[in-house]
């Protein structure tokens, strides 16, 4: 690690720094999300051309795919945070990991739900055991596992370390899981598989999709920063800097931190 990176790394490792500087990033991402998501969604749902074979039902892809992407990336990010927390014993990493879990879970659920809704018109059934659906379902279990573990352990420090360890173990497994599920799926060939293959889309179809994906990522990051900073405030509530922070100019996050931290 170069000295510069080291310094940057350790700065972001301090709760206070993360809280202060994180604020700007939170606002930036919030802004991007506020612009891109509505734009992409409206564009996709209202103006994008009708699909010749699926009709209007395909439009749900504008929620479905971005959600699915984010859900998958989120877990990777959590694993990285886990490594940082275990190797460098960095408290903030724990907080990030824990704050991200419910977000990832929600996106995962959105992907499954929209997918299911999509499945009804296209496959005539809410659910089929297709490779993607299955691995998504398993990812959902992974998220639930981490959150269950965290909520079950009282001692915050222990909970953080435990979840970090679990996230790492999990990420080692994810590629294996994906590979196995794909292989398994080729074993029995449900006829409906073709449907989930990427339709080769015309530009006016995938442009809004691209916008949605970027918007969803921005939204995800904004939420991570929000929840992380709230959790930091909650955990450090008895430290000097938070006391002075709250005592002085009442920071917006300071008062809604409680609600943010519970969920």
């Amino acid at each position: 690690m170069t000295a510069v990176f080291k310094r940057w790394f350790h700065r972001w490792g301090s709760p206070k720094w993360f809280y202060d500087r994180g604020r700007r990033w939170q606002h930036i991402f919030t802004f991007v999300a506020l612009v891109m998501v509505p734009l992409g969604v409206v564009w996709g749902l209202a103006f994008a051309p009708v699909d010749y074979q699926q009709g209007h039902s395909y439009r749900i892809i504008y929620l479905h795919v971005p959600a699915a992407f984010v859900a998958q990336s989120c877990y990777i990010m959590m694993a990285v945070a886990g490594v940082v927390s275990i190797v460098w014993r960095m408290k903030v990493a724990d907080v990030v990991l824990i704050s991200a879990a419910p977000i990832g879970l929600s996106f995962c659920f959105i992907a499954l739900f929209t997918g299911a809704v999509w499945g009804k018109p296209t496959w005539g059934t809410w659910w089929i055991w297709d490779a993607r659906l299955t691995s998504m379902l398993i990812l959902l279990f992974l998220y639930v596992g981490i959150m269950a573990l965290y909520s079950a352990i009282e001692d915050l420090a222990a909970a953080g370390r435990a979840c970090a360890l679990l996230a790492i173990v999990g990420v080692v497994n994810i590629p294996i899981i994906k590979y196995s599920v794909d292989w398994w799926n080729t074993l029995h060939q449900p006829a409906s598989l073709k449907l989930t293959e990427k339709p080769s889309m015309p530009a006016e179809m995938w442009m809004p999709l691209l916008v949605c994906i970027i918007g969803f990522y921005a939204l995800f990051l904004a939420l991570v920063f929000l929840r992380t900073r709230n959790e930091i405030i909650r955990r450090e509530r008895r430290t000097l800097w938070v006391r002075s922070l709250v005592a002085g100019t009442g920071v917006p996050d300071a008062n809604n931190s409680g609600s943010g931290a519970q969920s």
Partner: protein
Amino acid sequence: MSTLLTVIRHDMKLAFRRPADFVNALAFFVIALTLFPLGVSPEDSFLVPAAAGLIWVAALLATLLSLNQLFESDAQDGTLEQLLVSGQPLFAIALCKVAVHWVVTGLPVILMTPLLAVMLQLPADLLPVLLVSMLLGTPVLSLIGGIGSALTLGLRGAHIITSLIVLPMYVPVLLFATGAVLSAQAGAEFDGQLAVLGALLALALALAPFAIAAALRISVSQN
């Protein structure tokens, strides 16, 4: 070295003092499998193709349920504290414990399989493949399971959290193992899947003990 022998002999002794612990898994395995013909259908049209899969699912659940005995009693009666204080290499101790656990829960299940395979009308020529897949697969289940049960030690409802944590990681084993049998049934090659299972076993053997040790330290430190 001598420590490891000590731990192994100790756990073995305990297991035989309380045979119930491993009969437990075995009984569940048998019970679950006898329920399918009753509950679903006794006809060959259902059983023959499903047999291998049902046996594997039952074996997997049996392992899942036997997991909590792995460290629970040690944690409750304070033995775990003594293990930690002794300063012996924890990962090695963990490995021994998991090994013993597999010998007393996984192995009996495998030994019982031929009998149940007959009851479930599994084509005789598939039995060897099934057994090999179980010999390679169930230890992986025990190792991964060890991590889960160590992480959830002494927690409320450890049982369920363990299942949630562990299950997603069981899926690959299940898929490749049953996949091997299915390919054999279809007359196709199945060495590939078995090789993958072997690789998974090697990986688990190499990594799981350290994860378990880390998890144990975390759990002890919190109560």
